[in-house]
């Protein structure tokens, strides 16, 4: 029987209250969102906080909205909220692609977008999706609010720039006119973590790629992105050859390791192949939007 060790519990009722509680309990406190990563880690003693600050009552952090073309997702939005949002499906299709293959519908009911990013698991899907979209993350602390690019948010496995006493409060995705996006993942069985997955965002003008974003997860890419492959695409003609070459570059630069999910060579192959698949689909969607 797996049970967490002794812990204290506090329920925050507002962002301000959560910050007060985090300040009071210090670095041995942990934010409890859906708990679908934290509670399993506590059961295994991989995490042993002294106090849990439950933020599930912060309905002010649970929203998915588009304002000024920009997508804003509250940190407490559940995976299911992203999946149910029609505007996300239309304009940020990569997030629907990804959410459809993250865990299962019951886990998605309760796990949160903010919790997924803060967990910083090297195989987290949303980290790659938001890296591809070049999202900005909003962090709130005792001294106010700061923003950090998604690509500077993760500092290592299970580590982020969120300091003790701070909360991730919002994820912002810029509008990309003429853009399309997509996500492609391979896993061992439905609802499992990825062996490898790739997200792509392409903005095109005529036949030219004006902006490219590529996110990779589970293959050891720094900051969950494939910047060398992106460079090969921006300003280039949107041809199948270019996309294929971008896939080769992405595969070359990632650093997968062999584990129970699969050998490194297979993961590297997948990184390239999935990058190309996501790019192709993103391009089709960008073109469909142009018409």
């Amino acid at each position, binding site marked *: 029987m797996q*049970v967490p060790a002794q*812990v204290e*519990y506090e*329920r925050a009722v507002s962002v301000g209250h959560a910050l007060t509680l985090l300040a009071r309990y210090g670095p041995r406190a942990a934010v409890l969102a859906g708990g*679908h990563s934290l509670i*399993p880690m506590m059961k295994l003693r991989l995490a042993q906080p002294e106090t849990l600050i439950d933020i599930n009552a912060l309905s002010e952090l649970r929203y998915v909205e588009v304002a000024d073309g920009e997508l804003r997702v509250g940190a407490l939005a559940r995976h299911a909220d992203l999946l149910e949002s029609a505007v996300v499906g239309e304009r940020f299709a990569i997030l629907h692609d990804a959410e459809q293959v993250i865990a299962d*519908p019951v*886990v998605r009911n*309760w796990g949160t977008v903010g919790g997924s990013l803060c967990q910083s698991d090297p195989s987290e899907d949303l980290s790659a999706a938001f890296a591809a979209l070049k999202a900005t993350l909003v962090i709130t602390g005792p001294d106010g609010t700061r923003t950090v690019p998604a690509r500077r948010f993760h500092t290592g496995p299970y580590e982020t720039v969120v300091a003790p006493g701070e909360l991730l409060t919002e994820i912002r995705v810029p509008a990309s006119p003429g853009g399309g996006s997509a996500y492609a993942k391979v896993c061992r069985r439905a*609802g499992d973590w990825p062996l490898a997955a790739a997200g792509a965002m392409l903005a095109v003008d005529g036949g030219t790629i004006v902006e490219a974003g590529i996110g990779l997860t589970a293959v050891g890419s720094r900051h969950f992105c494939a910047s060398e492959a992106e460079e090969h695409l921006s300003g280039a003609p949107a041809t199948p050859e270019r996309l294929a070459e971008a896939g080769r570059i992405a595969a070359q630069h990632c650093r997968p390791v062999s584990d129970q999910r699969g050998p490194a060579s297979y993961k590297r192959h997948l990184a390239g192949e999935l990058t190309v698949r996501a790019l192709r689909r993103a391009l089709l969607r960008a073109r469909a939007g142009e018409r």
Partner: protein
Amino acid sequence: MRITVIVNGASHTREVEPRLLLIHFLRDDLGLTGSHWGCDTSNCGACVVWLDETPVKSCTVLAAMADGHRVRTVEDLERGGVLDPVQQGFTECHGLQCGFCTPGMMMTARALLDRNPNPTAAQVREALSGQICRCTGYENIVRSVLWASARQAEADPARPGGPALDGRGPA
């Protein structure tokens, strides 16, 4: 800590440790052993209950998180001696063998039919995809849920119609 949870319409106040998992609160503190405790790792879905209106895996939720909230378990499906259409479906279509996965399957199925009274077989499979059955091969579970959908449509013609019943339930 002291928590108050409305379980199946009845309010229960108990002194609990903050680390207590909701599944153990339901089974051990309240004696509601209908919800099953299986994998302990949020993979099997035997422990699914509703937290307010939302199906959750209760082995991965603290009882403390349910303080002040409503919980619905499989014990609440039957009302006044009448089985829920989902329970009838499982009976009619042989939707269980050992029955270990059944409470979780039924709570997820009930939530699905409340939101989408007329799902396709693919939608039923997707909804139940986070739940493991070691006995049935899933075929009869899907049939059971479709049977319930059809029975509801028959009982209440105002609902969006499910597939027609043919004695054996929809294939």
